[in-house]
C-alpha cells in the first residue's frame, strides 16, 4: 500500500513555541489514525501541519507524495480539514457555501446537494445562512463539504464534538466509507470510546511528540476476522 503520510523528526513552531517537537509518523493510504492526548499536546498542530497550513521548521515530511516544505500548496488541494470552526461563510446558506468551495476546487457543484442531504441539512435549515445555525448544524455542513470534496486525506479535529447521537454515528460511517474508498483519515479526539473503534492505529501525543502508538479497533476487528 502506498504511503500517505511520512514524517521524520517534524518540528513546527507557533511564534517561537515548538508545538510539534520531533514527530515521526508513517501512515499508509486507506488507513485511519486516531490521535489522543491532553489539551496542548499538539494534536491540532499535527493536523495543521498535515494540511500544509503550518510550516515545517525542521525534519522532513511527505503527504500524498508531495514534499511538505516545497509543495505545501499541492498538499492543501488534496486534503480536507474539519476543525472546531468549520471556516465557512456565515452570511451564505449551506448550499451556497458548498457550491463556492466545489467551484473553487474545480469540482462539480451538483455534488453539494446530496452531500448536505446525507448530513441531514435539508429543508428550512438548508435555506438558513450558516451564521444562524447551531454549532452542531454548522459542523454537519462542514462534514457535508468533506463528503462532497472527497479529499484523499481527511483531517478531523474532534469530529464528534457538538454533534448529536445520530450524527456521531454518521461520522463513524463516513470515516469507514472514506477509508474503504482509499482515503486516509487522521482524527483527533478526546472521546476514545467513540474514536478508537474506527481506527487502525491510535497515537497518543504528549509535549508535541507521539509518545505511544497502538492498534485501533478497526485493525483488531479485521485481524480477528
Amino acid at each position, binding site marked *: 500500500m502506498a504511503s500517505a503520510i511520512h514524517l521524520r523528526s517534524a518540528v513546527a513552531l507557533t511564534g517561537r513555541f515548538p508545538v510539534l517537537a520531533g514527530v515521526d509518523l508513517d501512515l499508509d493510504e486507506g488507513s485511519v489514525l486516531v490521535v489522543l492526548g491532553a489539551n496542548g499536546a499538539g494534536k491540532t498542530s499535527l493536523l495543521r501541519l498535515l494540511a500544509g497550513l503550518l510550516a515545517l521548521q525542521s525534519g522532513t515530511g511527505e503527504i500524498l507524495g508531495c514534499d511538505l516544505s516545497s509543495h505545501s500548496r499541492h498538499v492543501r488541494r488534496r486534503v480536507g480539514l474539519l476543525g472546531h*470552526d468549520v*471556516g465557512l461563510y456565515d452570511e451564505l446558506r449551506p448550499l451556497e457555501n458548498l457550491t463556492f468551495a466545489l467551484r473553487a476546487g474545480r469540482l462539480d457543484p451538483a455534488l453539494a446537494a446530496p452531500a448536505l442531504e446525507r448530513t441531514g441539512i435539508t429543508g428550512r435549515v438548508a435555506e438558513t445562512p450558516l451564521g444562524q445555525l447551531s454549532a452542531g448544524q454548522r459542523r454537519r455542513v462542514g462534514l457535508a463539504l468533506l463528503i462532497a470534496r472527497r479529499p484523499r486525506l481527511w483531517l478531523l479535529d474532534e469530529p464528534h464534538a457538538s454533534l448529536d447521537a445520530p450524527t456521531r454515528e454518521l461520522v463513524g460511517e463516513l470515516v469507514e466509507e472514506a477509508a474503504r474508498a482509499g482515503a486516509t483519515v487522521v482524527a483527533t479526539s478526546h472521546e476514545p470510546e467513540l474514536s478508537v473503534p474506527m481506527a487502525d492505529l491510535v497515537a497518543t501525543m504528549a509535549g508535541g511528540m507521539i509518545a505511544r502508538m497502538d492498534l485501533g479497533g478497526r485493525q483488531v476487528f479485521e485481524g480477528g476476522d
Partner: protein
Amino acid sequence: MLRDALLVAGRDLRIEARSKVALWQVVPFSVLAMILFTFALGPNPAALTVSAPGFFWIALLFASILATQRSLSIEGSQATRESTRLLGLDPAGVFLGKVGALVAELVVIETILVGGTVLLYHVAFRNWLLLVASCALAAIGLASASVLYGSLAGGDRVRSTLLPILVLPVVAPVLIAGSRAFVAAIGSSGDGGRWVAVLAVFAIVYSVLGIVLYGPMEEI
C-alpha cells in the same frame, strides 16, 4: 486566475448583498462626513464649492477604509482564511476578486458622494468624462492598495487599527491626484489629464504588486 477572481468577487458581492454593511453603514458614514464638513465651513456657497474636491476625496478615503475592513473580515477568522487556502484558489485570483468586489462598492459610494457634492456643495461639473475616469481609476487604486495592505495587517483584532495607519499614507497620491482631477472636472483648471494619468499609474502599480505579493503575504 480570472476564473477564481470572478468566483471570489461573486462571493464577496453576494455576502455584501445579504449583510448590506456597505449600504447601511459605509454609505451613511460617508454622507454624514460630507454633511459635517459643510457645518465646519458654514453657509458660504463659494467656500463650499472650493472645498468640495478635498472633502469629497477625504470622505471617500475614510469610506474606502471601512469598506476594506468589511471586505477583509469575510475571511477574518483564522479558520476561514485556512479553509479558503485549502480550496486551492489562485492567490492572485483571490486578490483580483476581492479588489473587483471592493471597486464595485466604491463606485456606488462615489456616485452617492458626487451627488452629495452637487447638492450640498453647489458643485457643477463641466467635464463628466474626467470625473468618471478619475473616480474609476481611484477606486481601483484604493481597492488594490487597501486589500494588499489589509492582508499584511493580519487578523481582525489588529487590522481594525493597523489598516488605516498603513493605508492612509500610501494612498496620499490618490487624494492629491483625485482632488486635482476633480478641480479640473469642475472646470477650474485644465490639467486634469495629467492627474488622471497619476491615478492610472497608481492603480496599475498596486494591482500588479497585489497580484505578485498577495499569495506570499497570505503565507506569512
